[in-house]
C-alpha cells in the first residue's frame, strides 16, 4: 500500500502538467510542441489513475485507456500534418506557418 499523501501525488501530476505547458509555450519547434502535449496528456492520465487508486474504482483506469486512444489518434494526425508542413515550408518553426494571419 502506497501511503504517500494524495496531495503530494496530485502535486506531482500538476508539476508534470506545468512542465508540459511551459514546453508548449516556450518551444517553437513543432516536434517539441507535440512532445509537450504528450507530457500534458500523460499527467492528466496520471491524475485519473491517482483517483482510481484513491477510491478503488475501475473508472479511472477505463478513462486512462480512453486517453490512450485519443492520444494515439492525435499523434498520428499531428505527425502527418507536421510532415505536410515540412514539405511546404521546409521548416518546423511554428511561427513560419502564418498564412492564416490577418495582416490588415
Amino acid at each position: 500500500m502506497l501511503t504517500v499523501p494524495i496531495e503530494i501525488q496530485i502535486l506531482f501530476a500538476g508539476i508534470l502538467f506545468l512542465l508540459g505547458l511551459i514546453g508548449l509555450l516556450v518551444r517553437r519547434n513543432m516536434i517539441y510542441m507535440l512532445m509537450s502535449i504528450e507530457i500534458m496528456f500523460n499527467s492528466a492520465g496520471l491524475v485519473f489513475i491517482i483517483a482510481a487508486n484513491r477510491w478503488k474504482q475501475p473508472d479511472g483506469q477505463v478513462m486512462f485507456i480512453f486517453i490512450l486512444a485519443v492520444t494515439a489518434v492525435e499523434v498520428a494526425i499531428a505527425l502527418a500534418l507536421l510532415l505536410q508542413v515540412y514539405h511546404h515550408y521546409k521548416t518546423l518553426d511554428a511561427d513560419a506557418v502564418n498564412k492564416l494571419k490577418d495582416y490588415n
Partner: protein
Amino acid sequence: MNIFFYIAAVVALISTIMAISGKNAIHSLLYLILSLLAVSVIFYLLDAPFIAALEVIIYAGAIMVLFIFVTMMLNVGTESSKVNKLTNPRKWIVPSILSAILFMDFILALKNVPASTSAGQVVLPKQVGISLFSTYLLAVEIAAILLMAGVIGAYHLGSQKKKVTHRFLEKK
C-alpha cells in the same frame, strides 16, 4: 515503500525537464521515453499494473516510436551526422544514470511491495475490462469511430498530392 514513489517522481521530473529543454530532438525523445517509464513505475506503485503495462507498450513503445520515425525522416537533428559525438560520455552518462536509478527502483519495488490480488483492496484488470465493456460500451464504440477517423485522416494527410496543374500554368 514511499521512497520508491519519490525516487520515480524525481526521475520523471528531471527527465521531463531535460526533454523540454534539449537541443537535439532525438535526445529529447529518449528523455521523454525515460519520463514515461518513470510514470509507468508510479502506475505500478499505485496498484494499476495493467495500466503500467499499457503505458510502456502504447506510449513508450508505439507513440514514441512514431515520433522517432518522423524525427529521423525530417532529419532535424543538428548533429546527427557526427557519429563521434556519440562516444562523448557527457552525452549519455546522465540518461544512463537516470535509467539505472529507475531500474533499481523498480526491481526493489517488485521485491519489497507485496502484490495484493484480492478484489476490494485493489482494482483488478478483470474489473477494468468488465467496466469497459458494460458501463462504458458506448464510449468504446465512439473511441473505435475516432480511431477509424484517425486512420483515414492520417492516410489522407500523409499521401502526396498528385499535381493537376499544367506546368505552364504554375506560378514560379
